Each structure stands twice: as C-alpha cells, then as structure tokens.
C-alpha cells in the first residue's frame, strides 16, 4: 500500500512538473514569437518557436489565443497559424474543441479583438447555432468583424419586420443597425432602408465627413515638382491672404459640398487644372484633447497637416480612390484645431486621370465619427457609442 501511495505521489508530482513545464514552455514560445519585428527581426528564434508551438496540445489553445493580447500585426498572424495547426491536428484526430472555454474567451473584451473573432470562428465550426446565440450582442463590439456580423443580423431582422408590415419595429431595427454599422456597405444599406421608410438619415455625420472647407489654388505642380514645394498655406493659413498661384494671384474660397460622402470635386471648386495643387483648410473644434484618426480618400497625391504638424504624405497619382484610403493618427487639442490638406494633380492626359478630388473624415480607431463641436449639420455625436474595452 505504501509503495502504491509513493508511486502515485511520484507519478503525480512528475505529471504536475511536466504540466507546469509545458505551460512555461508554451508561454516562452509565445513570447519568442511576439518578439518578431519589422524587416525580419527575431525570425531565427521565432521560426523554431513556431514549429514547436504548432505542435502543442489543444489544452494550450486558449493560451495561444491569449498570447495575441498586445501582439502586433505580424506576430498575431504567426500565432493565428499556430492556433490553426493545433486545431486542425486535434479535430482531424476526432477531438472536440473546448467550446465553453472559447466562449468565455470570446466575451472577454480584454482579449485581443482579432483573437476573439478567431475564437468565435472556432466555436462556430463546432456549433453553427453560435451565430444566432452569440453574435447579436456584438453590435457595438471593438472587433469590427464581430460587429459587422451583428449588424448583418440586425439588417436581416429589420428587413423581415418590414416585409411583415411592422414598419415602426423595422425602423427601430434599421436604426439600431445603422448606429452599430462602421462598414460602408452596411451604412449605405441601412440608410437607404430608413429613407425608404420615410426617415431622415445624416450619412455624412455618421461617417464624420467634413463638408465645409476653405479652398485655395491652383499652385504650380508642373512635372509634379510642386509636391514638396511649401506654398504659403504650409507656412501659415491666413484666410484673407492673396497668394501667388500658378496662373496669377489666388485667395481662399469657402466651399461646401453637399455630397453625403464628403466628396469635394476640386474641378468644381477651382475649375479644371492640370499640373496643379489645391489646399483645403478647415477648423475643427474639439470638446477635449483626444486621439483621433484622420482618414482621407484621394486619387491624387496628398499631404495632411494637423495644427501645423505634417502627419502623412502620399506622392501617388491615379491609383484608385476609396473611403479611408489613407489613415493617420493625430492628437486633437481642446478647442480649435487646424486641418490642412494638400491635393496635387499631375498632367496625365488619359480620361481616367482627370479626377482631382478628396473626401475626408475624423473618427476614432473603430471608424466612429468624431464631430466638430461647431458642426452646422443637425446631428450630434451622441448617436455614436464608442466601444469600450
């Protein structure tokens, strides 16, 4: 009996030590992978760690997912691949996924948003009822993928209500979908549905597109040489100034676009010019200092300044134009902030190279509009709930 107890104790101790060692080892492997940096930094150690981590038991699945917390875009992808290898080997051997643990991980907003989405997809692969059961709660989630799915369900529900003739309930559902939506297509869909039901929707405010600008130009950009020339607005914006332009003196003009996606067509604001530069200026009033994202869609070369600080420069002409094409972070100060854009047109003659335009918005990292406090349009930021972690 004593021998049996002793043997059991020794075996138990050995198992505990082994399990402890395995946990520590997995943590170490994750840490090694998280040391991967730009330009191949940390790869030699990470390649070996990845090989080992891809072979650990499914009992460590949550550990690897948790390891994505704080991981950058690169190491997050390494860890994702390890998760997929672990899951693939386990399920091909007939194993079941730890769905309860994954659900607990999913609803914990402290976890990485991408990792939570991956956890959901694993849950869904084991339990297709997970969509209806779990997704609706994510309509304001920091994971934009989870949020998008929740908005899709809300839109589906609203459409069903509308088909059933339950107009008022459909409006509530469409409005709920719109408030959650950060995806362009979903915003458009919800807005169109609400308008069809006789509701007013301020799409421009939902996105945070700026529609009122002061425009000056054209300045010279012959042979695209003006991109790095600091014309007077880059030194100081003085709205009553008369400045030497490409074809004579130019001054600031107030310009309002009524495009609800904030598109400013500079050929309408300033006439058609080739080899030309325009500046667009606006003041943005912030209630408090805060970090924001400045997002520009522009088919022309461009620069963005916030309060005199150059945030981004993109010397690219006629290579597509999309909402949020160029995203840069900026720090708003309390009160008035100055936003200055430089939009450069080249001299290409092809029909597809004639556009000279931009659309610009201010939002948070999730794409939630941040509105200037003096915004003249009848919408307020209170509609928009910022996701909380």
């Amino acid at each position, binding site marked *: 009996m004593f021998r049996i107890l002793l043997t059991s104790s020794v075996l138990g101790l050995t198992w505990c030590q082994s399990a402890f060692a395995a946990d520590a080892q997995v943590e170490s492997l994750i840490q090694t992978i998280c040391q991967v940096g*730009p*330009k*191949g930094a940390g*790869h*030699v150690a*990470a*390649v070996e760690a*990845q*090989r080992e981590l*891809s072979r650990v038991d499914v009992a460590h699945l949550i550990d690897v997912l948790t390891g994505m917390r704080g991981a950058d*875009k*690169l190491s*997050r*992808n*390494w860890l*994702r*691949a*390890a998760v*997929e*290898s672990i899951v*693939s080997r386990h399920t091909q051997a007939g194993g079941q996924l730890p769905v309860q643990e994954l659900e607990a991980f999913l609803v914990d907003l402290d976890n990485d948003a*991408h990792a939570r989405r991956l956890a959901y997809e694993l849950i869904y692969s084991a339990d297709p009822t997970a969509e209806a059961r779990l997704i609706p709660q994510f309509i304001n989630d920091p994971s934009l*993928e989870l949020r*998008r799915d929740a908005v899709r369900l809300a839109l589906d529900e609203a459409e069903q209500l509308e088909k059933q003739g339950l107009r008022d309930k459909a409006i509530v559902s469409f409005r709920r979908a719109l408030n959650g939506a950060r*995806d362009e*297509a979903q915003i458009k869909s919800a807005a169109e549905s609400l308008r069809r039901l006789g509701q007013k929707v301020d799409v421009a405010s939902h996105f945070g597109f700026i529609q009122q600008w002061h425009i000056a130009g054209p300045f010279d950009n012959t042979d695209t040489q003006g991109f790095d020339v600091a014309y007077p607005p880059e030194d100081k914006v003085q709205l009553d100034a008369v400045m030497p332009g490409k074809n004579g003196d130019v001054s600031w003009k107030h310009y309002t676009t009524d495009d609800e996606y904030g598109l400013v067509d500079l050929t309408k604001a300033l006439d058609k010019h080739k080899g030309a530069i325009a500046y667009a200026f606006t003041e943005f009033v912030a209630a408090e200092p805060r970090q924001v994202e400045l997002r520009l869609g522009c088919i022309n070369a461009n620069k963005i300044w916030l309060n005199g600080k150059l945030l981004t420069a*993109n*010397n*690219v*002409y006629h*290579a*597509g*134009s*999309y909402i949020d*094409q160029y995203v840069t972070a900026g720090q708003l100060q309390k009160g008035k902030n100055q936003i200055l854009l430089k939009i450069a047109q080249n001299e290409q003659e092809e029909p597809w190279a004639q556009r000279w335009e931009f659309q610009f918005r201010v939002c948070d990292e999730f794409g939630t509009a941040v509105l200037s406090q003096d915004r003249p349009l009848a919408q307020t930021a209170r509609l928009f709930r910022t996701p909380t972690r």
Partner: protein
Amino acid sequence: MKRSLIGILGVSILILAGADWPGFLGAGGRGVATESQPPTQWSSDANVAWKTPLPGRGPSSPIVVDGRVFVTCSAGPNQDRLHVVCLDAQSGTQLWQRQFWATGRTYSHPTSAVAANTPVSDGEAVYAFYSSNDLACVELDGTLRWFRGLTHDYPKAGNDVGMSSSPVIAGDVVVVQIENQGDSFAAGISRQTGETVWRIPRDFRANWSSPAVLPHPSGRVTVILQSPSGLTGVDAADGEQRWHYAADCGTIPTPVVTADGMILCNANGVTMLKPTESDVEVVWQSNRLNPGPASPVYHQDQVYAVNRAGVLSCADAANGETKWQLRLKGTFWASPVLAGSNLFLVNHDGLAQVVKLGESGELLASSEFDGEKILGTPAISGDALYVRSDEHLWKIAAE
C-alpha cells in the same frame, strides 16, 4: 555552352517532381508541359474530375506540388482575410487551410482581388504572396514557417489598383518584386528564415510584371526584373545588378526564359535577348507580337503571344517573323499554357479555347467554366488542367 545551359535548367526543374507546376507559368516560368495531355474539351458532365468551391476570390493561379494543389484566396468585405488552401489533387478534398489577417493595403480594382499573386513552391514549402505585400511561408503540411508584412515594413509600398507580381524561387531566396509609386523595391527573402537577404530600390512606377529566373552554367542564378524602363538582371545571391537593358517594357506580362536560356522580353512588342552572366544582346524584335496582359509562350522554336484584341500570333523564334495569326474570342488576362502540342487559352469570360499548333493554328475546341469569369492562368500537372475562378477550382481530366 548551349547544351550545358540546358543541363543546368533541367537540373533546376528536377528539384521538384516532374508533374509539379510549382509557380506562375509552371516549372521554369515557361507555361509549358509537353508531356501532358489534358482533355481538349469538357462540360459539366464530361472530363471534369472535380470542382470545388473556394473560400475567397483571386486571380492567382493554382499550383501543384507533390500531389497537392495549392491556391490562394482573399475574402471579407475589405478583402483582408488571406487564405492558403491545400487540396488533394486526386480527389479535390481539402487537406488544410490557413488564414492570415492582411497587414498591408487591401484595395484593388473590382475585377482583381488581394489574392492576385500566384504562390510559388520549392517542394518543401509554399510561399504565398498577396497584393497587400504579405508573404507567408507555409510548409506542405500546413505549418507556418514564417510570415512577413512587407507593407508593414515599408508603409508606402502598395498600389490601390492592386498588385499582382508573383514571387519566384531563386537559389536560397524567394524574390518579390514590389513596384509602385511609393516604397518601390525588389527583395530576396531567405526561404528558411524569412529574413531579408537583399533589397534593391526600383522605379517609382506601377508595375505588375513578375520576376523570371535565369540559371547559369557557373551555378549563379540571375533574377530578371521587368519594369516600364527596361529589363534588369540581378544576382539572386546578393541583388547586385549584372546588366540592364533599357527599353519601354510592358507592365503586366512577365518575361519568359526559354528552355535554351534566351529571354523573351515584353519590349517593343516582343524582344528576344541572348544573355550572358554580365550582359544581354538583342536577337530580334517584333512589334507584331504584342502581348496584352498575357505572357508569351516559347516552344519548339516558335513564340506564341495573344494581344489585347484576342489575336494569337505565332512567330519564328529565330527571327521573330510572324508565321500565322488566329483570331480568338474575348480578351485575355490569363496567360496561355501549352500541353502536348496544344495551346490552352482561357479568356476573361471563362471561355477556354484550345488551339492545335502546327504550320497554322487550328481551333480544336471551346469549353466553358459554368459561365464564371477567369483571370488566373491555368496550371497543368499530369494529364490534368487546373483552373480557378473567384468561386471555384476545377480539375479538368479524362474520366
């Protein structure tokens, strides 16, 4: 000299199994599988070995390695989910799938997608490259070896019309050509570790052409980079420039290295170049051979090219003189591929036209892919043709 060069080229191909189609335009980047005899005609109930749905879009080509078919896809409203899918070539059964979150730009023209670049394999791993300039090395069993985000590293690298240059294996590195108006470069990335072995600046102009590989009898390997300003040969070991041929080159078709070591460059129509280790000389130029987006094919002393109007031309490889032309239906993004003595051309509308090659071109048969549009170049392995659309992957093989 010629014979030894052929020997080197042959050895480089034999590293992979004979039936493999390991990258864009297959082994050697020539689009030729002379021993293969795929069916020349098919329909939904004849000669379709299997058809399988794909998890995302992409004009990238499938590749075939060691009895497995690999294909890349991009999915999601923002095309930011990057897939590598591995299927059993015999059955079409999915063996594994890996996904990544794009770290670079995911905008593209609506007809294209982020999975535009064809992956490449060295027989040990697949190197999946995307328009977002994300590069993943995944071993054949699905284990990630390494992952790079080259726009993450060089934030101005990208083209919002989309990028599509396919990587090549050259010696110890996988070579990527990332040419655009921002951070424009080519790089040799270690196959084993994913570290940058070399990186060289390139023209600040948009370019979609893929690199080509030219082995030398000395054992050195030249990587050929085609851009709007010309063709450049760089050493695969260190990225050092060996030669430059200045010309107005096409920005979409890829240069082709022939089986006897000549270069078909897409300049002034098509230009045939004779390379040495340190230079190239022009053999002939033909502006009647004017490939559109599709790359030319060289086979048995003939050059074949299809232009933007859908006219297939055959030229004598000795002097570039046109021997015959054949008007085909549609426009072509997919490059033609050759199996046996037949050229397979799939147009944008998904109409495959099979041309029997000889003293003239004879249209043997036409078949469709269930009405789906096709941008990706087919792969050939054994007696099968593999073709992908935005939605499906087909294996065309005799039953």
